[in-house]
């Protein structure tokens, strides 16, 4: 059953990917909407009011939920 084995392989791949996903932030695209700060449940993001940009202050807390990636209007955040 190729479907069965390919499912197992895919599963393994997903488990591995999930463990290693990390945020990639491109501050030059950030326009300071702070949706990331609004939605992050673990406090990775903080607003920098002076520069009107988001700051990825606690990347190590990231749980790879993808909320900031989805809500950022400028595609400044990626998970990879």
């Amino acid at each position, binding site marked *: 059953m190729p479907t069965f084995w390919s499912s197992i392989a895919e599963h393994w791949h997903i488990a591995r990917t*999930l*463990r290693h996903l990390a945020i990639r932030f491109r501050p030059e695209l950030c326009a300071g909407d702070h949706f990331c700060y609004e939605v992050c449940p*673990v406090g990775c993001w903080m607003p920098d009011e002076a520069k009107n940009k988001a700051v990825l202050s606690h990347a190590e807390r990231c749980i790879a*939920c993808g909320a900031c990636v989805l809500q950022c209007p400028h595609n400044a955040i990626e998970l990879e």
Partner: protein
Amino acid sequence: MATVFMRWLETRPGDYDRGIRLLTLGRLRPLKERIAQQHIREGMRVLEIGCGTGALTALMAARGAAVTAIDASPAMLAKARQKVAASGSPVTFVQMDATSVGDRFPAGSFDLIVATLFLGELGLEAQQVVLDACAPLLAPGGRLLIADEVVPSGTAARLLYTLVRWPLVLLTWLLTRTTSAPLRDLEGLLSRAGFKASQVCAALGGSLVLYQASPTDEATVARPRAVRLRHQVTLRTLLIDLWAAFFRILPPYPKVKPGLYAVGRPGPDSPVLVTGNFDLTVRRLVRAIDGQVDAWLLVADSAGINVWCAAGGGYLTAERIVAAAKAAGLDGLVSHRALVLPQLCANGVDGRRLREATGWQVHWGPVRASDIPAYLAAGRRKTDAMRWVRFPLRDRLEMVTVTLGFYGLLILLPILVFWRHLFWPATISLVSLSYSYAVVEPWLPGRDGLAKSVPMTLIALTGLLVYTAVWDPAPVPQLFGRAMGITALSFFCTAEMQGMSPLMRGEQANWGWEAVVGAAMALTYWLVPLALGWR
């Protein structure tokens, strides 16, 4: 997190075709041929909603109809394009969500609207929104054809249907990860949408039906007003709570009917709070705000799953909330244009799409329902404490009980059947390990459940040594067996608890490692006694 996991569950177009063929026992194809032969004339303007891989699209195009086929899935559309290209007829394909079909096409632009095995994929309000939009799209004399699975009427037919369908659904899902949901009360849906419907034919013991419907001039039946929800404890809620304390991971999930509800006495200026339709979610939300806030509660169809998991798994989406808002007639209900969403559905609900589709402002509310009154009183302002997830002892104890209910059953049942003498030791160890972990979790070193499993296992082994030395001395081979058992159990409960809070990556992230460690332990358990000559 779960988003990535759910990708595994997504159906591929080829699998989808096979799955549907299996589920309908090959009876869908003749039904589609019948639609093409008896209902399609040359030059007819046809809208196909949810064309899937385009089997019917190709048949209708071959009969000379001008077909517009829509589907939400780019992969399905690509397959449909291939199929139709082979027949050479022109078809307009549009990738879009069916709930916005009314905004996309001008009124009266189709002679026939057809949807096969599509409505069942939508939530209840989405079904109503799509059907509501259909009547105005039809030109005078136009008709609607719906072929879908329904739960047959009649006790005997229903019983037979259940007996045949469940194994079939399971088999199909395992082979192709395709499934479908039968419709309930299709005639009621159609009549509320302003259609007069009649059944054209039925197959599979009345479980696969074709309905033909034409718009009526009668005004649509008035929708019911918002029901008021209060915090109350009844025998029913106690029973659900008792079940949920141990087995809330297991479907079927207790659900609330999606729709608009009132908490307190809301008026045109009251806030609109959005949530999913898991019974526990709605009741806890109501408990948290009843008596403090007057609010409208818009319950979207999240398949009975809590908002975080439903959004991560693709069950609670912007489309579902749009559908709920449209079905509830929100626009005419309140004077403002602000939706308050739970922050924990931001991992799957696209805020921008929701804004664009409804024209409403989207506000991400607090993580915890108990913070909602303070959040609203502060003019929808969140403090950091409101936006960051905590996992206090009370929640840890609750979640460990849930883990025990489901995984405990999974581990302890085989032990009860095959290794009866180990049942009580294993049960007592698992329960005490789980609750001990819940208590000490924040102080264990390590950033996730896998890392924390090391100190936890060391604590558990120390406990075992003390127990063995003081109360129940045992020879080395037996002590080895006990140690392996305790290690396996403590590793398992620490690694699995991880998925019980959005504080750490989902437990799926651990599966690979759990498998590796499990295999290594099994090997050790088998090899060490062999090597040391205990057996």
